[in-house]
């Protein structure tokens, strides 16, 4: 594989990796190169990107290479976020909203459990748009906030009441349960390993 092809493949890889990024070791495996060679390659690419005036840059976060946008372009991204054609909800917000709708009342940590990622920002967005609200506190330590959907949520989607929500196309609730279960089992393995370590 020549240098240009390598750079081209790495660009595709980093594009797909998103904010999880890729470590030099992972890139080395995929390209079948040694890691030192990859580190050199990445340094070279960083410079290439700056020199070419590219709109994305390569940064290293927690030992992983990832693409990010340029800070000086911030005003345009703000505009994009405010664009009337773009005033829909982000995928993250939609997912969170769906989980709240189908599983309310639900705490933040339960939502995060299902989604596998933090959702503080998404919850904040949904609260600001009055699609969800605090509907109480769970019992127990810390008495975490319980979230539920609002009247505005029903209005917006033209629902009479929450029981009016559509059956998900696939057997969503079962899938969710399975997913939770599989994550639980993954956890169980870890716990058991832990015990054997003791």
């Amino acid at each position: 594989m020549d240098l240009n092809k390598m750079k081209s493949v790495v660009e595709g890889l980093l594009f797909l990796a998103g904010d999880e990024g890729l470590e030099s070791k992972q890139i080395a495996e995929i390209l079948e190169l040694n890691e030192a060679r990859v580190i050199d390659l990445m340094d070279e690419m960083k410079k290439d990107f700056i020199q070419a005036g590219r709109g994305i840059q390569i940064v290293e976060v927690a030992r992983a290479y990832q693409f990010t946008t340029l800070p000086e372009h911030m005003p345009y991204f703000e505009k994009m976020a405010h664009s009337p054609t773009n005033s829909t909800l982000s995928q993250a917000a939609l997912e969170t909203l769906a989980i709240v709708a189908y599983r309310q009342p639900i705490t933040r940590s339960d939502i995060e459990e299902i989604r596998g990622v933090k959702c503080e920002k998404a919850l904040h967005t949904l609260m600001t748009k009055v699609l969800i609200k605090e509907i109480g506190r769970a019992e127990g330590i810390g008495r975490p906030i319980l979230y539920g959907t609002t009247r505005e949520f029903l209005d917006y989607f033209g629902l009479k009441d929450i029981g009016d929500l559509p059956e998900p196309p696939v057997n969503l609730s079962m899938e969710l349960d399975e997913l939770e279960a599989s994550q639980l089992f993954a956890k169980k393995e870890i716990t058991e390993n832990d015990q054997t370590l003791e």
Partner: protein
Amino acid sequence: MSYSIKLDSFEGPLDLLLHLIDKAEVDIYDIPIAEITEQYLITIQTMHELQLDVASEFVVMAATLLSIKSKLLLPKKEEQQLDMSLYDYDMDEMDPRDDLVQRLLEYKKFKKVAEQLREMEMGRSHVFTRPAEDLTPYVREEEQPAIKNVTLFDMVQALENMIQRLKTKDPVTKVSRDEVSIKDRMTEIRQLVKVGGGHVRFSQLFVNDVSRTEIVTTFLALLELMKSKAITCVQNQLFTDIMISEVKGGNNSGFE
């Protein structure tokens, strides 16, 4: 028949007919009905002998072919007389094959298009993209725009996408300590069931914002109790809570 055909590879009678016409290298506008009908019937017969499911559509088409064949055999005059009472005079000239030919051409058109779509599908499957970034960080607090263009469907779709995404992802591994033993949890559950008069809802087992470990332990404890037939679990409907009930006269200890 001089050639063999894969019998299960036909999408339907029209597909089979197109195949036979192709093989016979005849003009679709001038189908030798007798010949094609014979081959069609042989194919159906073979399908039957191989105990393949011959869908009713294939049989209906056989009947159509036979009917066309017999119409063609009728002397022209008689046909005219028969038709006169039913159709306009200008219909007299109609070839009994016309309807079928039109259907075949129409179907063939979509078969061709489907082929092109197949290629496009293949092309698309060779490229990848990334999910859109959450733009919320770029939104200034004071002016959150109202939502627009979001449908219920979008929401459900988002959930489905998430499931697909999570399914393909390795679970993130974080090590934590097992604080409550399964045995302890089994005892607790049995107490809760007793306090609840023989029943307790699954959700009631988690009164506070529990950790994953606790959920796991509870879950495993439940499985143990079910295995030892100390309790039963019933879920009436999707989304509804699971009801945990004591088994009357079941294993009272719940332990090995």
